[in-house]
C-alpha cells in the first residue's frame, strides 16, 4: 500500500531488509573481484533475477512486483551499499524499461515485460552520443522510413556512446532523429521541425543485423558494469518496435530521466552508507596512541558528519521518490534535487572514508577506495550535477 506516511510501510521495510541480507551474503563477497576483473557479474544478475529483485519495476500483470519507485530505490540502495556495479543492474533495468512503462503499447509490454521482469533478458537505454551528451536533442543517429507505408520498417544509422550495460543487454531503447533540426545553431539546413520534436524512440534487439558493440570503455569506477559504444549500420527495425509517436522521443527521454534519476540517487546513498559503515567499523578497531581512533574528536566529527550527510541525502531521495510516485507536477525538480544531493554526498562521504582509513583506505585491502571511484560516476551520469542544477533553477524561475 503506497499510503504517503513519513515512514516506510511494513512491506517496504521487509523488502529492504530482505535485499540487504541477500546483498550482504551473496553480493558483498564478490564486489572486490568484480571491480578487479571488470567483468559483468552474470552470477549477480542471476541472484537478482532469482529473488525477483529485477521484477520490482514491472507491473504485476506481466510477472513483475509492481513496486513503487521508492521500493525500487530501497533495493538499489541496499545492493549498492556493498557493490555499486551490482546496484546498477537493477537501476539500468528500470531505466531501460521506463520508456516502455511510460509510452509503450500493451502489445509491447506483453511482448517484452515478462522476460524482463523475470530477469531472463536485460534492457539498456541508448540516448547519449559522442557529440550529444547534456545536449540530448543534438543526437545524430538517424531513423528513416523504408518506403512510404504508414507502418513501414525503419532503418537506423549512427552510433551511441557511454551506454550502461549496452554490451550485455538483449534490448536497447534507441533514440534516433526522425526529422532534421530546425534550431541547431549553425546548421546549414533549417527545416521546420523544432529540436525537441526530432527524436523518436525504438527498441532495437541485439540480434538485428547491423547492430554492433563497437567497444567497451575502460573506466575509473563501476568497473563491472560494461559501458559500451554501439554502432547502428542500416539496422532494420519494424514499426511495431517504435515506442510512442514519431517525434515524441525527446519527451519520453525526459520523462524517463525524471523517474530514473532517483535510482542513481539511491545508488549514491548506498555507496555513501557502505563507506560510512566501513569507516565506522575501522575507527572502532584501529588503535593509535593507545586508543581506538574513533575516540579522537577529529575522527568522531568526521564520522558524525558522514552519517548526517548520508541520512540527509537518503531522506531527500525517499521524499522525492514518494512525490514522483504520487504524480507531483514538479517531478523533474525532485529527481534532479535528489540526484544532485546524493551524488555530491557520496563523493564527499567516500572521500572522507578513505581519509579515516588513512593509508589503508588508499589500497584495495579495504573497499573504500573502490567506493570512492564508484561514487564519482553518480555525479556524471543521467545528467551531470550541472544539468541537475539547471533543471532545478529552471523549475524555480519558471514559476515566477
Amino acid at each position: 500500500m503506497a499510503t504517503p506516511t513519513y515512514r516506510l510501510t511494513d512491506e517496504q521495510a521487509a523488502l529492504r531488509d530482505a535485499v540487504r541480507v541477500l546483498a550482504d551474503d551473496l553480493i558483498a563477497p564478490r564486489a572486490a573481484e568484480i571491480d578487479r576483473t571488470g567483468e559483468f557479474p552474470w552470477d549477480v544478475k542471476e541472484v537478482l533475477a532469482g529473488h525477483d529483485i529485477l521484477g520490482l519495476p514491472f507491473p504485476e500483470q506481466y510477472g513483475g512486483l509492481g513496486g513503487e519507485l521508492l521500493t525500487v530505490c530501497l533495493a538499489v540502495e541496499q545492493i549498492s551499499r556493498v557493490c555499486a556495479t551490482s546496484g546498477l543492474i537493477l537501476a539500468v533495468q528500470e531505466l531501460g524499461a521506463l520508456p516502455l512503462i511510460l509510452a509503450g503499447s500493451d502489445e509491447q509490454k506483453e511482448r517484452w515485460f515478462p522476460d524482463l521482469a523475470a530477469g531472463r533478458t536485460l534492457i539498456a537505454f541508448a540516448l547519449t552520443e559522442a557529440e550529444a551528451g547534456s545536449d540530448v536533442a543534438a543526437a545524430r543517429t538517424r531513423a528513416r522510413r523504408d518506403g512510404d507505408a504508414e507502418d513501414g520498417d525503419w532503418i537506423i544509422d549512427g552510433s551511441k556512446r557511454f551506454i550502461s550495460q549496452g554490451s550485455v543487454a538483449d534490448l536497447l531503447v534507441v533514440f534516433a532523429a526522425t526529422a532534421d533540426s530546425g534550431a541547431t545553431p549553425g546548421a546549414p539546413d533549417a527545416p521546420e521541425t523544432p529540436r525537441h520534436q526530432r527524436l523518436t524512440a525504438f527498441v532495437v534487439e541485439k540480434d538485428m543485423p547491423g547492430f554492433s558493440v563497437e567497444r567497451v570503455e575502460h573506466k575509473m569506477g563501476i568497473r563491472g558494469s560494461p559501458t559500451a559504444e554501439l554502432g547502428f549500420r542500416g539496422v532494420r527495425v519494424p514499426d511495431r518496435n517504435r515506442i510512442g509517436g514519431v517525434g515524441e522521443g525527446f519527451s519520453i527521454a525526459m520523462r524517463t530521466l525524471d523517474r530514473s534519476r532517483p535510482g542513481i540517487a539511491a545508488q549514491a546513498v548506498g555507496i555513501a552508507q557502505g563507506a560510512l559503515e566501513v569507516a565506522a567499523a575501522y575507527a572502532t578497531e584501529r588503535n593509535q596512541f593507545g586508543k581506538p581512533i574513533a575516540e579522537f574528536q577529529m575522527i568522531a566529527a568526521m564520522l558524525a558528519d558522514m552519517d548526517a550527510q548520508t541520512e540527509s541525502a537518503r531522506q531527500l531521495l525517499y521524499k522525492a521518490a514518494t512525490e514522483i510516485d504520487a504524480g507531483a507536477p514538479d517531478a523533474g525538480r525532485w529527481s534532479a534535487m535528489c540526484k544532485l544531493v546524493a551524488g555530491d554526498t557520496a563523493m564527499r562521504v567516500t572521500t572522507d572514508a578513505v581519509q579515516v582509513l588513512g593509508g589503508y583506505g588508499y589500497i584495495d585491502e579495504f573497499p573504500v577506495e573502490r567506493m570512492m571511484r564508484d561514487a564519482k560516476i553518480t555525479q556524471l551520469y543521467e545528467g551531470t550535477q550541472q544539468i541537475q542544477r539547471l533543471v532545478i533553477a529552471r523549475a524555480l524561475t519558471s514559476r515566477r
Partner: protein
Amino acid sequence: MRIVVLVKPVPDTASGGERLRPDDWRLDRAAVPAVVNANDEYALEAALKLTEAHGGEVHLVSMAGPAAPETMRKALAMGAASGTLVTDDALAGSDVVSTTRVLAAAVRDLEYDLLLAGADTSDGGAGVVPAGVAALLGLPYLSYAAKIEPNPDAGTVRVNRITPTGYEVLEGPMPALIVATQALGEPRYPSLKGIMAARSKSLETKALADVAAGDAPVGGAAATTTVLDATAPPPRAATRVIREPADEAARQVVAFLAERRII
C-alpha cells in the same frame, strides 16, 4: 501432505544487544529486533522441500509475544501457507512445561501428516519442547533428523537420525513429530514475491483461552523454575585482528597459539 512447523521468534543474536531485564532476569524482548529461531528455519526449509516434492502446504504454530506476527511474516515469506500464533499476557515468563502444553494444545486442533521442530532455541535453549509436545500428543518422536523420507501411500515416514557414531534409520507411522537438524540443508532466502505474498497470508492469533491447554495451570505464574540471579560474561579482552591472506593468517594464528602452548 500437510506439515506443521513449530517456530519461535528470538532476539537477533547478530544484533549483539541481547540483554536480561534487571528486575526479573527475563529476556528483554523489546531491546533487540526479533528473528525466526535459526534451528526452526532449518525445520521450515525441510518442510517446504517436502511439500514441493509431495504436494501440500506448511502451517506455522508459535507461542510468543504480541510483536511476533512481524517475525512470523518472515517465515511465511519463505513459503509457509498460514500460521497460528498463541499470544497472551498470562504466558509471559512461561517455562518449558507451560510452553509444551500450550503448543500441544494449539497443534491438537490441526490436521497434519508431520510436525517439525528445530532442535532448540537460541534464547531458551532447553531443547525439550519438541519431545514434550510429541509425548502430550502421543506422536512418534523422530529426533535429530538428517534426512526425512515420507511414504504417503503407506502412511509412514523414515528418518536418518544422527548419532555420535553415524546414523540410525527410524520409521514410524504418520502423523509423527520430527526434530530437524542443520544437515537437512540451508534455509532459503525469501523471495521478494514471497514477502509481498506473506502480507495477505492467514495468520490466526489466539489467546490462551482459545486453546484447550487442559486443566493444568500454564503461564508465567505457573512457572516451575525461577531465575534467581544472572551474571554477564566478563568483557572480551584486547583483541588482535590478523588481516592477511588465508595462508599467512593461518600461520600467524598457529604461531600465536603455539607461543602460548595452547597447541
